[in-house]
Structures are given as structure tokens and as C-alpha cells.
């Protein structure tokens, strides 16, 4: 097939793989970060995102035809993360992604980002998912409810409880941007 205007050629399969590759390249970092916020460690998060992307490609026609392809993939990712957590669950949540190599256990040596990460990951799973979807992935209450398969009212109540819990974490959530 020839696009006369640009002289560039397109093929249906090539276009499909190209759009997928572009999706991977542009969404990878954000998706991995979402999963880390959801509670997996970095390597498990990268594995989960890879698995979700592989599954997404298997139904890429449906993904690309979806009203919101990102939300479609995020839904797949949530399922992968939940399955992964069921397999890996050992009753503990990693408290930090990065080692504190400085040898200090005081707040001076811990960045606010890591403190926030720690705070979010200390929430119960349901509240954590709502916080990440609402405030990091930036989905509406309705979309969050759809993705999690719960009523909107549940999203609202979980959000309220999560924010109340986070507000009790000194130094993690601040009312103005720090100078990090």
C-alpha cells in the first residue's frame, strides 16, 4: 500500500506491530512505575508489565479499537499484577525499592519520594489500587470503578480511607512541593 502524499508505505500487519512497538516504547516507564506503586518490587513490576504487554498484543486489534487503549492495557496489567501477587505473596510488602547505602536510618537519608512510596505500599491492597489509579494513572472515579470491577461508591470510600491513612504519615505527603 502506498501513501501518495508522503511516499511512505504502510502494511496492515506492519502498522499493527509498529503501533504496538510505539506503545511499548512510550508507555513502558509509566506502566512499570504504576506497578511498583501497586506494591511489586521493580523486577517483578517489569516482568508483570512485559506479561501484560504480551497479552495485549495477542488481542491488539481489540486494544487499538478500544475507546481508551491505555485503560484496556491497564486492565490487563491489573489482572497480571493480582495473579502475580497471588503467586508471590509471602505475607510481606517490600518497604523500599532502593537500598539505603548511606548507613543512615534517619529521615535525613530518605527522600520524600521513597517515603511516599513506602506510605502508599503500606495501604491495604484495595485502597492502594484506588490511590494509584485515581492519582497516578489519573483515571476518573467511574473509570477506576470499571477497571477494578467495583461500584463507584466503593472507590469513593476506599479513596477517603486511603487519604485519611496517608495523612497520618509525617513527612511523606506534603502540602507543598519540596525542594528535592
Amino acid at each position, binding site marked *: 500500500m502506498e501513501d501518495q502524499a508522503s511516499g511512505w508505505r504502510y502494511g496492515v500487519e*506492519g502498522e499493527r506491530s509498529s503501533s504496538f512497538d510505539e506503545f*511499548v516504547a512510550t508507555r513502558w516507564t509509566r506502566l512499570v512505575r504504576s506497578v511498583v506503586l501497586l506494591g511489586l518490587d521493580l523486577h517483578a513490576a*517489569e516482568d508483570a508489565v*512485559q506479561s501484560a504487554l504480551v497479552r495485549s498484543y495477542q488481542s491488539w486489534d481489540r486494544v487499538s479499537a478500544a475507546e481508551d487503549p491505555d485503560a484496556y492495557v491497564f486492565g490487563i496489567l491489573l489482572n497480571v499484577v493480582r495473579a502475580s501477587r497471588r503467586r508471590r505473596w509471602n505475607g510481606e510488602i517490600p518497604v523500599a525499592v532502593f537500598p539505603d547505602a548511606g548507613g543512615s536510618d534517619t529521615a535525613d537519608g530518605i527522600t*520524600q519520594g521513597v517515603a511516599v512510596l513506602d506510605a502508599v505500599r503500606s495501604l491495604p491492597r484495595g485502597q492502594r489500587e484506588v490511590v494509584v489509579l485515581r492519582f497516578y494513572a489519573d483515571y476518573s472515579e467511574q473509570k477506576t470503578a470499571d477497571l477494578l470491577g467495583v461500584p463507584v461508591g466503593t472507590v469513593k470510600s476506599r479513596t477517603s480511607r486511603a487519604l485519611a491513612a496517608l*495523612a497520618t504519615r509525617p513527612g511523606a505527603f506534603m502540602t507543598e512541593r519540596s*525542594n*528535592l
Partner: protein
Amino acid sequence: MNDDDVRASLALAADAVRPGPAPPGRQLRERADSRGSGRRRWLVVAAAAATALVIGGAWMVTESGGSEVPAPAGTSQRVMNPSLIGLTTERAKAELSALGLSLGDVVEVKYREQAAGTVLSQDPSPGEAVLPGDTVNLQVVGPAPDRPADNGSGQVDSNLTLRIENLRAETIVVLIPHSAGTTRAFVDSGKATTLTGETICSYPWLTATTTDGQLLDTFAQPCEGQTWRIEQGSPGICATLQFQGRTYAPAEEQPPVGVGAPLGEAGGADCDGIPPGQVPVYTANEEAQSEALTATYQDTVVIYRPRQP
């Protein structure tokens, strides 16, 4: 605490997470294709069986004195356009060259979450049949956008003064904070100076690239109020650098100073001769006496020295 506070805090937390580079889309597609659905796998098996029957039949005809099966005309010179998405521009060029293809237009776009030089899309599309000599156009991540001094970011907050020994002329010191999604770089003049914002501000614009041509960092323009910001370009950070015509490599001798997480997370798979995950992690050396550098506990410091010819 309102919703925007939560969003800002989560963005900060997310910035502290440094995933490795995105896997090539081609690799994921191949995994998806190799899994397939049960029905699809069955179809593949059936197709393979049918192909084997056809080939077997053709072989029997040939062996029994029949005419050879001609190869389809006009397809012998065509090659499949490789997927270059996720590669560096230089690697993409090498892949094209290996297939007899050439690099066409390279359009740079601004995109923060991938390293400069990373291929975002290509045309013709991956998998399309192309002829040797054809050109392939790329859309790649451009250099980090210029930013004015920003008092709200890039400033070390909780300071830890580190001592760096044996700084030499033209030593490059790169500080990689895990906290704010920024990279700070220092170039030492060889004099026994304290590396402060003021010192950094005395240097001109600098650009460093890895030896495969990938932009590592655009060092920030002299700053105001000893504050600076450099957009991240972390993949390849532990590779050698080419800077002003000279090649630099991470110091191999007794590590200088620095603290923080393994560079593997920030460095990705592009480290020159250093396997991911085995990148040196520098530890604080409080006894070193000669130079001072401020950093936080989450930061990593890499010292580059001129590579011996």
C-alpha cells in the same frame, strides 16, 4: 492534603522508581506469537503438516525425474524491514546497514521518559518487505529540552558532603540522584576546587554522548542561585563517554566516593563492557580528603576519567 498534593507526591514517588529501558516491541511480539491461542497453535501445527506434505510431494516429484519447483519470482531480493523501535539511533543504523538498508530522515521529538536517541517509530513499518537500498525513516527522542533555572527542582535538599580523592584534570563527575528524576553533572578543572553550584555555573554548555552516539546528557547551562536541572539520560550512564573529542571511561581503580543504589537500575543494558547488575556501587569514603561534593544518600556518583589511548 488535597487531591493535587496526592498527585504531586505520587509523581515524586514514581520518579524515584527507575525502570530499565523498555524491551524491544519486537521481542514482546515474538513472545506473543510463540504463545498464541490454543486454536492458533493448532492451526500452526496443521499448516506445518500441510507444508510438510507439499514439500514432501514436491521432493518425490523431483526425485522421480519431474521438473523442479521454481522459486516465486521477484521475492528473492526482498528483506523484512526489522523493528528498530526501542533501539538507539546508532544501533538502528547498524541493523539497517547489515540488511543493506539505509537510514533516511531522522526526526527528533521531545519525550521525557525515554533516553535521547531512542527510536520511537519508523517508516516503513516493521515487518514490511523492503528492497536492499531502501531508506527507513525514524522518529527518535530528541535532546532534553532546554529549561531555565528552576528553584523548585534539581536542588539537593538533604545534603551529605562527600570527599573525592585524586581528581585529575578533565575528570568528569556525574551525580545521579534517585530522588528527583534529574541528573547533575560536574566537570572538574583539575584544580583542587569544591564542586558546588557556583563552580558548575562557571562551565559552558556541555554535551556528552556514549560511544554509540546516544546522547547521555545535556549539561545544564550555568544556573542562577546555584540551582540547575538536567533532563535525565540515564541509559548508557556507565558506558564510555565522548566529550570534546576525548573518550572517558568510568574509573577502574579504587572507587572514589558516592552512595546509593546500583547503577544497573538507571544504567540499563547499554553499559560498555559492564553487564547490567554488575555495575560498581561506590561506597562512601569519609577519609578521602581532597574534594567535596554534595549529594543525598540516594544518589550515585560516577567518576569518568580520560581513557588511555
